Structures are given as C-alpha cells and as structure tokens.
C-alpha cells in the first residue's frame, strides 16, 4: 500500500481555466463540440491515473440579458451527457457530474444518475449543488431563487429521497454497481461545509496556498467527526491550476504568454461576470467602485463584499484588481514552475494534511492536460505517490472509500 497516495481529479470544463485559454496555440476551441476531442481527453485522464473527470454546471446562460459581455457567454455541454459519453470510451476513470438539487426532482435525479451508474459500470459521482445564480430561476418558471438556507434544507431532503429511490432501483432492475453514485460537494460557506460534512464522500474546494488547504481540511474533518462520520472516508480535493516550463523562468514566461492573450478589457469582463455586475464602463485606472458593485450585483452581496473590500482598502485600481483576479481565478492555487517543482509541491501539500489530492484545472485545453500527464504524472509515480494501475472498476474503489454508508441525518 502506498504511503499517502495522491488522488487526482481532472476538471475539464470548457476551454480551460483561464478566460484567455481558448486563444492559446495549443487550445482547440472547436473541439469542445466534438466527441473526438472528449474521447482524447478522457483517455488522457485515464492514462494519467486520475480518479475522476469532473464537470461543473450552471443552469443559466452566461451573457444572458446583456449582463455580461459576449466573451464570457460560452455555451456548455450538459455534464451528465458528456461524462456518460466519456464512459463509453474509457474503462476506469470516474465521472463526476454537477447537478442541482433546486431545479431537479429526486425522481429525475435518481433516474439520470441510476442510468449513468449502470451504463458506466459503477463510475458515477454526483457533485451536489444548490444553484446560486439568480438568472436560473426564470428558466424554471420562477421569479427568484429560494433563499440559501432554504436551498440547503431542500437539498438534504432531495439527497435523502434520491438515495431511497436508488435503493428501490437496485432491488428492481440490474444492480447499481456502487449502490448509488459517489456523493461529492463543493460549497465553501458555513451552510455548504455543514452539508458537506453530513453528506459528501469527496469535497472540491479552492485553496490558494498550503495554509488555506490545511485550515479547510482540518475544519471539514472536525465537522465530519462531529456528525459521527469517519473523516478518513472523505477525500478533500482542492483545485490546482498550473503552467509548466523547463525552468522556473520558462514557466513564468509561459504564464505571461497566456495572460497576454487577453487584452485589458477581457480582465474587466471576467471580473464583471464573476462579481455579477457590469464594470466595463468604469475607468480601469480609477478606484474599485465598491458601492456601485454592491448596489448592482445580482450575486450575494456579502460574498462580493468579501472579495473586493481588501483590495479597495489597499487602494488597488480597478484594472489592476481585475488583472490580478484573472491571474488567480476564484481563489484557486495557480502553480508556476518545473514538473519536478510541481511534484514536490503536491507531495508537500499532501504530507502537510492540506489535501487528499488535487483537482487539476488545466489552464488551456487540451495542451495543459497533456503537459501534466506527460511530465508530472511519471514523477509522482516514480516517487511512489501515484498509482500505476487502477485498483478496481468502480469510482468508490478508485477513491479507496469504504462501502457506502448512510447519509448522516
């Protein structure tokens, strides 16, 4: 048995982690509409011994209603469909699809995931989300999202009901190989952490540095133990983006080259989309218009205030804040360095208890994934920290999780 094995997930959303990533010479933006592309990246993830491929989701169109600029308005493919198609061309890699509890009934969820679970031979995972974007509600005939605490309360009921339905399906048709999909969660708020502690078997989170990782994992393990579950039965998988180079200088140059693909306006557009408020009319050299943002944002004001207040207090100009935001999207770790340095960093995080593994978010696709699989994976394997073959056929076996337990009440 390997000591402190590093688990790997691949977050392969769209065109890569950086908003300018699709313009990279090794990016294939037309590919995200073709099966050939997905077959290639799914096989690459399996070659790299990833536990799972993950796709996020949203139930509204970015750029809808003129709120965000067109360069953010990228269409996506439904994650359950995409991952199930990938199941047909792979044997081992797990498939984690994000699906909302707010805008699906337990019956819809149970049937979709039950089918995905059977046809993939037990490789399905469900990233449970409650949907936070207010533009979603009108797509389901409602004016507004339910309040956050209500969405989480409802999520608990939906998960419990879906689990009942899977148990019934298991008795009636071909067996669900894992009994039910592996339950995954990605919330960071206190509500989200509490829900994760009770429900999740794996957790995706941002951690910009090793201290943040240790803090998050310790907090979650405490919460998990407090509800009577075993913390070792939950994998914590912070996001990790990277730009590699033969030397550290080369990696930094490669990073700048990706950022340079974006003009200054793209950074402001990306920030606008992330803050839920159009900032394109403001002077980039001026101060961050905090009051306007908090007044106009369609996202939760407290979250937005937390994101912008420190920079405002430092007097950072809007353009600089936007550029910095694009360099460190959504609080995730962006690693720049050589493949050796990256392997060292990953091992150090794992040994410090900052994570059980990482959710790799390639900066552009498919080149960023290719680089990691070709250059970093062999190093982790040489050091005995990454498997060289899959232990079984189901995602649960791959994650090294115990047989499924009941969801804590």
């Amino acid at each position, binding site marked *: 048995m390997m000591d402190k094995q590093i688990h790997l997930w691949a977050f392969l959303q769209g065109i890569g982690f950086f908003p*300018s990533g*699709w*313009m990279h*010479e090794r990016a*294939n*933006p*037309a590919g995200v*509409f*073709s*099966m050939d592309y*997905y*077959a290639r990246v799914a096989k690459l993830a399996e070659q790299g011994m990833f536990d799972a491929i993950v796709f996020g989701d*949203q*139930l*509204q*169109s*970015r*750029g*809808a*209603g*003129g709120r965000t*600029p*067109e*360069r953010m*308005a*990228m*269409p*996506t*493919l*439904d994650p*359950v*469909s*995409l991952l*199930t*198609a990938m*199941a*047909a*061309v792979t044997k081992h890699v797990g498939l984690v699809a994000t699906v909302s509890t707010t805008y*699906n009934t337990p*019956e*819809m969820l149970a*049937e*979709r995931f*039950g*089918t*995905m679970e*059977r*046809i*993939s*031979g037990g490789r399905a995972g469900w990233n449970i989300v409650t949907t936070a974007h207010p533009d979603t509600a*009108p*797509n*389901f*005939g409602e004016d507004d999202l339910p309040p956050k605490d209500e969405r989480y309360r409802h999520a608990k009921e939906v998960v419990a009901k879906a689990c009942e339905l899977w148990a019934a399906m298991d008795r*009636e*048709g*071909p067996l669900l190989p894992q009994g039910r999909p592996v339950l995954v969660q990605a919330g960071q708020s206190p509500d989200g952490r509490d829900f994760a502690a009770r429900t999740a078997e794996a957790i995706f989170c941002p951690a910009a540095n090793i201290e943040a990782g240790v803090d998050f994992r310790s907090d979650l393990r405490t919460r998990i133990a407090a509800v009577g579950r075993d913390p070792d039965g939950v994998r914590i998988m912070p996001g990790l983006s990277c730009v590699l180079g033969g030397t550290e200088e080369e990696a930094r140059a490669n990073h700048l080259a990706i950022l340079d*693909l*974006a003009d200054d306006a*793209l950074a402001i557009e990306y920030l606008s989309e992330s803050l839920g408020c159009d900032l394109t009319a403001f002077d980039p050299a001026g101060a961050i218009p905090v009051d306007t943002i908090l007044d106009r944002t369609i996202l939760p004001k407290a979250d937005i205030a937390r994101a912008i207040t420190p920079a405002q207090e430092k007097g950072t100009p809007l353009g600089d804040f936007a550029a910095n935001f694009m360099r460190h999207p959504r609080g995730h770790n962006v690693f720049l360095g050589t493949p050796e340095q990256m392997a060292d960093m990953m091992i150090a995080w794992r040994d410090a208890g900052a994570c059980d593994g990482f959710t790799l978010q390639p900066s552009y696709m498919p080149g960023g994934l290719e680089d990691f699989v070709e250059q970093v994976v062999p190093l982790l394997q040489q050091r005995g920290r990454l498997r060289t073959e899959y232990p079984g056929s189901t995602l649960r076996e791959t994650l090294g999780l115990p047989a499924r337990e009941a969801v804590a009440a």
Partner: protein
Amino acid sequence: MTRPFILSASIAEVAFAVPESAAPILYAAEAAGLDLLVMGRSGARPFDAQVLLAWAAPLTSRLGLVATVPASNAHPFHVARALSAIDFLSAGRTGWSVVSEGAPQGMGEDMVGAARALWDGWGSDTLILDKASGRYLDASKVSASNYEGAFFKVAGPVNAMRPLLGHPLLVVDGDDPLAVADADIALFADGQPVPPASKRLLKVAPDADPAEPMARFEAGEIDGLHFTLTDALSQLPVIGARFGAPVSARPSESGDLRARLGLPIPSTASNQPGGAVIPENA
C-alpha cells in the same frame, strides 16, 4: 434525390441499460442498417433514455439515436441541453419522442414547444471562435425565448448551443400521439390514424414478409418500417437480412441525419435556417 427507405426500431428493456447488453445491441443495430433506434417507451422505465443516448453516441457512427422523454418527469430546460450535447457528441444523429406517461393533456406538446424555443434562442451562425480577434461568439445571435405555455414557463437562453440538426428529429407514435402539426417521423400501426409528420413508418413484426410493406413504400403510402424489439440480438439480424437491402442500396450515406433522411427542419418549427455551424480551422 431518391426517396430513402427508412428502417427504425425501438427497445425498452431495462436490461439494455448495462454495457454488456447495450454495446452488442448497438453494433447489431448498425450492422442491420437501422436508421433510427428509439430507446425507452411508455411504461418501460426506469431508465433515462437520454443518458443511454449519450453512451451510444461514440459507439455508433450512422445510427440515429432517439430518446423517449416522459413529459411528466423531465423539464424542457434540461431536455434541450441534454439533446443538444448528444447531437454534438453524435455529430448530428439525435432525435426525441415525447411520451405522455400519465402526464396531463397538453404537457407533451408544451415540452416540445419549450425545447424548440430554447434551441431557436441560438442562431445557426453564433460561433466565431477566432483566436486572432479574440471573438468567441456573436452575442447578438443569442436571445431569450421567454416561452410561456400551459405547463412550462422558460425564459432562456439555454446555456447550450443550437444542435447541429437545428432541432433533433421529433418522432411521434400513434400509440401515444402528440398534437404537433410538424413532427419529422410518425410511427403507426395498420388501422391506426397516422399522426401528421414528414415521414410515416409502419409498425410491423420483425419477421414480417417484406413483399407487402415494400410495395406500399413503392406506392408512396409509407416511408419505411418500425419494429418493436423484444429480443434485440436475435431480431436485428433478421431485420437486416429481410429489409436491409434498400438501405444499403442508397446512393449516399454522408451528411447528418436530416440530410440523410431528407428531413429539413419544418419551417413552422424554427426561426433559423438550419443547424449550428462550427467554424472550421478553429
């Protein structure tokens, strides 16, 4: 263009939903020359046929993949997205058949109207994908649908591209007919009223004598045949042997499913000229 003779079959057993059963059946369906495989039917759940379609997409290359969608246990926003994804993953080979399965009167029609409105929220030529100019798409070609029916109210736009087919083929069944004037394919049994559609497929037994249905096809009375499979692995080779000849004699097999079967998007059903165009060299 000569009129294509269309071969279609449906399969509904739950056992189909495991890879060991499904893969050989898909290969046998392609080998038999089937144009359409309809997965699932009323009362044959639980499995989600849309999920099976996604799995079937990379394992097949010419078979049209049709999902039955229950009006009462689905939402048009989700259905529009899933079918759009499957249409891209199958390079333009999707279809759907809405079944009422206990849903209130009109709900199936409402499902069709809402999903079509969402697909039409994206123009055929929305994507630009130009690395040099940094223009990914033309947002002026994306619009809210603001669909409002008796059961579904869906603002849109949907966060999925317009399908390659524009709209997946709409298949209606005389056993559970949908009041839609411009369906693409109708399935009907002898003695049953034929739902309005561009193409009419007669339901016959897998071991039927080919002479009579072929004569009806030649007379222009029907456009092909539909079989309900109960033992797919033994029935598909029989169907291929008896009815596959006119399919394999077709002059051209290239193009997406609409092109191949001679089914343009009904003009009443779309405000767009065709399916999504993915720019080349991107």
